[in-house]
């Protein structure tokens, strides 16, 4: 630990840390412009100058680049520092009067406008590609953009051209950069907002959609899944990470004050031993883009019900402001389509009822009215299924209080016209065709099992139906158990369910699992396979046919401990007694107890006599 004095206080710093770091440790704020924690400092802007009084060569040094040294006595706001800092800010402000950050610093550090001449017209008029790119009047030439691209990211798309007052940030030959990866690090680190990679990158710039908000806003590769996420810690999306795509960057690792970022981290296989398993893998929505007629995916204002949830959510991308994705305007009319892919006997949909849509559509209508008081809502439905406590009353309120107009029938086509979406459908109650010019269309897409549920079921050796929903052991009497002992189901992985049903089933599954694990021992039928070690020759054909992996090699040792034979051994916990191994065994060295060959041949003898 290095000890030094800053503003009369004792500060500590580690080897390699700067005065700035040490001051930060004391809570002393030193302004910076050309400094970014991820980028090696160069001390270019001189805003961070501090005065060394003792312990080193006296004078002004940049705190960001000057190493913390033993015994230094540093003043961060002495007269000399203030004068220098104020002058630096004034000079930079003379260059970039528009830069907000400089104006603020000027206020803070008492830097009145200099009675200086404005600097040279240092910015050349753009020739095809703007030199300097971005808002060039704000460029203070701190070099962060150039350095981050060169030293951190790697492609070195930009460079300083010229020197002195003529210095500029530019791309080589002022051409669109084909090495620019479009990451936007330059814009991120720029203290004044002077650079925009869209102006010089030869690729189009594309943001990374935020999955939690279903792509209605964006995120960075390392990101917190959502504000209330548990664990409330970030995750690195390697697909989009510069480090994992190009080998460069690693800024987060440098920056993290806790040293928590580990880019070397690899997938790890951990083994957990448990007595019971509850499967609660949930559901997802059918992708409605399979229905061309609804235009989902083509018309931005056609959204799924889940997307609608995010758009009205106070924690959503619009902070609860319901707006049309196409233009940000509030939707004055909205059409909800139910049964998108549900109750469909043919076609890409599912034959079953998704159960929750009638209810949430009614809810959506209410939420819509909360947000757009003068808006008009329509619901196209097949039947309204509101079986549940207070459900029917809820739906009735929606239709009765004219929160939404319910139209029984299906929609045949949606097409854009004059900034609106024209929804064409049938109203079977009035017997006519209806056409609604809507600002937004919400599709209540069918509930389908979440991806990978069937793969998981196979790993668990539990069964699932043709839709991929996991199967219960008995539809009435064992609704949360599976055919495999010790494995239970909860929630929408079993079938479309609303929240109360899911929670109830979860508690049921928990109680079933508890019923198992409260015991420290378990008994089971002895009708399982046993190996006759006298005749087994260790060919392990049986191992191949065992569906339970119950057969494994066993070393037979003599008294000295040397292995004399390797024979099949049956794990009595795993063996289910199916007998497949027994049939396969050429030397007939396995018997299933209770179903031995001897017994069975006797039975055959008995009935064929």
């Amino acid at each position, binding site marked *: 630990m290095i000890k030094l004095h800053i503003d009369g206080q004792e500060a500590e710093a580690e080897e390699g840390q700067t005065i700035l770091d040490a001051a930060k440790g004391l809570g002393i704020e030193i302004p910076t412009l050309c400094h970014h*924690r991820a980028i090696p400092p160069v001390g270019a802007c001189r805003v961070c100058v501090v005065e060394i009084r003792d312990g080193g060569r006296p004078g002004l040094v940049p705190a960001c680049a000057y190493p913390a040294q033993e015994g230094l006595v540093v003043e961060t706001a002495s007269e000399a520092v203030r004068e220098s800092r104020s002058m630096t800010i004034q000079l930079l402000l003379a260059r970039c009067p528009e830069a907000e950050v400089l104006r603020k610093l000027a206020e803070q550090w008492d830097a009145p406008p200099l009675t200086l001449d404005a600097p040279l017209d240092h910015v050349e008029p753009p020739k095809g590609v703007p030199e300097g790119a971005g808002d060039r009047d704000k460029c203070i030439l701190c070099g962060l953009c150039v350095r981050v*691209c060169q030293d951190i990211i790697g492609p*070195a798309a930009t*460079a300083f*051209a010229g*020197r002195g007052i003529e210095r500029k940030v*530019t791309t080589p*030959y002022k051409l669109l950069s084909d090495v620019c990866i479009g*990451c936007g*690090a330059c814009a*991120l680190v720029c203290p004044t907002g002077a650079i925009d*990679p869209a102006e010089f990158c030869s*690729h189009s710039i*594309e943001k*990374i959609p935020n999955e*939690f908000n279903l792509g209605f806003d964006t995120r*960075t590769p*390392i990101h917190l899944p959502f504000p209330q996420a*548990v*664990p409330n*810690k970030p*995750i*690195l999306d390697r697909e989009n990470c510069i480090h994992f795509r190009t080998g460069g960057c690693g*800024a*987060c690792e440098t920056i993290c004050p*806790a040293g*928590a970022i580990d880019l070397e981290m690899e997938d790890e296989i*951990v083994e957990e*031993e*448990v*007595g019971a398993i*509850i499967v*609660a893998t*949930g*559901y997802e929505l059918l992708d409605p883009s399979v229905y061309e007629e609804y235009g989902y995916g083509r018309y931005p204002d056609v959204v799924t019900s889940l997307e609608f949830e995010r758009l009205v*959510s106070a924690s959503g991308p619009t902070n609860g402001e319901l707006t049309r994705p196409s233009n940000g305007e509030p939707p004055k009319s909205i059409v909800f389509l139910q049964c998108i892919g549900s109750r469909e006997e043919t076609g890409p949909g599912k034959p079953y009822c998704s159960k929750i849509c009638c209810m*949430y559509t009614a*809810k959506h209508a209410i939420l819509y009215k909360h947000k757009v008081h003068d808006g008009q809502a329509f619901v196209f439905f097949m039947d309204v299924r509101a079986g549940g406590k207070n459900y029917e009353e809820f739906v009735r309120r929606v239709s009765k209080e004219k929160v939404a107009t319910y139209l029984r029938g299906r929609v045949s086509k949606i097409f854009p016209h004059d900034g609106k979406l024209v929804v064409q459908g049938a109203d079977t109650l009035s017997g006519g065709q209806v056409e609604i010019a809507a600002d937004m269309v919400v599709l209540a897409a069918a509930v389908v099992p979440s991806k990978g549920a069937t793969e998981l079921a196979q790993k*668990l050796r539990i069964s699932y139906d043709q839709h991929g929903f996991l199967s219960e052991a008995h539809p009435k009497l064992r609704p949360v158990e599976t055919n495999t002992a*010790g*494995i239970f189901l909860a929630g929408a*992985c079993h079938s479309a369910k609303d929240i109360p049903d899911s929670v109830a*089933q*979860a508690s049921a599954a*928990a109680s079933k699992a*508890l019923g198992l*694990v*409260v015991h*420290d*021992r*378990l*008994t*089971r*039928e002895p009708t399982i396979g046993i190996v006759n070690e006298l005749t087994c020759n260790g060919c392990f054909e049986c191992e191949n046919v065992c569906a339970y*992996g119950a057969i494994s090699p066993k070393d037979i040792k003599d008294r000295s401990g040397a292995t004399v034979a390797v024979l099949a051994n049956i794990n*009595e*916990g795993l063996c289910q007694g199916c007998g497949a191994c027994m049939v396969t065994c050429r030397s007939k060295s396995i018997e299933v107890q209770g179903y031995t060959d001897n017994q069975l041949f006797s*039975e055959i*003898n*008995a009935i064929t006599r």
Partner: protein
Amino acid sequence: MSRMGVFICWCGANIAETVDCEEVARYARDLPGVYIAQSYKYMCSDPGQRIITDAIQEHQLTSVVVASCSPRMHEPTFRKTAATVGLNPYMLEMANIREHCSWVHTDRRDATEKAKDLVRLLVEKVKRNQPLYEIEMPVTQRVMVIGAGIAGIQAALDVAAAGHEVVLVERKPSIGGFMSMLDETFPTLDCSQCILTPRMVEIMQNDKITLRSNAEVEQVNGYVGNFGVKIRQKARSVDLDKCTGCGDCWNNCMAQNRIHEPEREPECSVASPEIAAKVDAIAAKYADEPGGMVVGALQDIQEEFNYLRQDALTYLSRRISVPLSRLFAVARFYGAFSLTPRGRHIIRVCLGTACHLRGGGSIADTISRELGIGDGETTPDEMFTLERVNCLGACALAPLVTIDGRYHGKMTIAKMIHLIEQCQESGDTVAV
């Protein structure tokens, strides 16, 4: 020697109507190994069961066949009954003379014959039965919950509340599932996150619950009570124990956008073979130097091509793996480089201090005036390029001008004009 008892159930009329149970009993009694055989109205009733237990005790039966309904129905019942009087339950088997016989056949004779067959079948089997004993296994008293949406969260909390450890596995980096994305919930319209978030936090705080987020089930081994589950804990790149969630990383994440990995055109497309060959030769000169001697290579390229051609520089950049931006920056930094073609005659005017004091500035102004070009510029006919340099190190000759490297000292304005004229006339360098 087996002492077997055979008990034929009438099942009221269910069996007896079609099967002559007494005859079957008689038949059974004669079968080898059978010690006693008798029939009764309801074997599964209490008196019926007592008949069996009494017989077992009285006759010290070693095995029993009950001919009645499907074993899928009452095998556990009768085995339990037998066990109460000390008979190993696996020494008892059932002959299914109801579902497989009396209920599906109408001919009494056929049915009775079949029932005899079935009884015989079981008698022969049971003769070869061995006493079996139930297997006892330890139970791992923990539960795994796969999926941490509201259902998984609830299940995990319930199990934990009962005092058992839970491993909660979630594929996504956060728990919460779809419910965390919902706004308000029907039919009460309470805020989804408001009711869910406390549960999520509880998961984190409950020390009975081990949360494995960003993890997937890889393989499941074992069996009820003893599952071994291999979980792929996907690399999060964040050490959850160390992370304080301060936000520095995501607020400073350099990738603000999706990344385009640049496709590289092949080297040959950036410069013609002739130019490439020349640049190759230059690059080879500096191959041994760690920095590639960028400045030197650029000097050579300028010498070779008169100026720093874009294609040559681009090619060099690829060749020596130095970013073009760096070459460009170097080219624009140093006074000696030109990115545009230079004239056939390069006039350099020294503006070192000595030359300045002796009127070098006026000489430079004169050239500018005569040729209409400024510093670093070239006349439109590509005849002259003017370079103002900061001392050529021959101060005794001040003011000094060099034309194509040749020194012209003690320059005067008149001499300069004369020199330019001479150059223009001859088109060649002129000696003083």
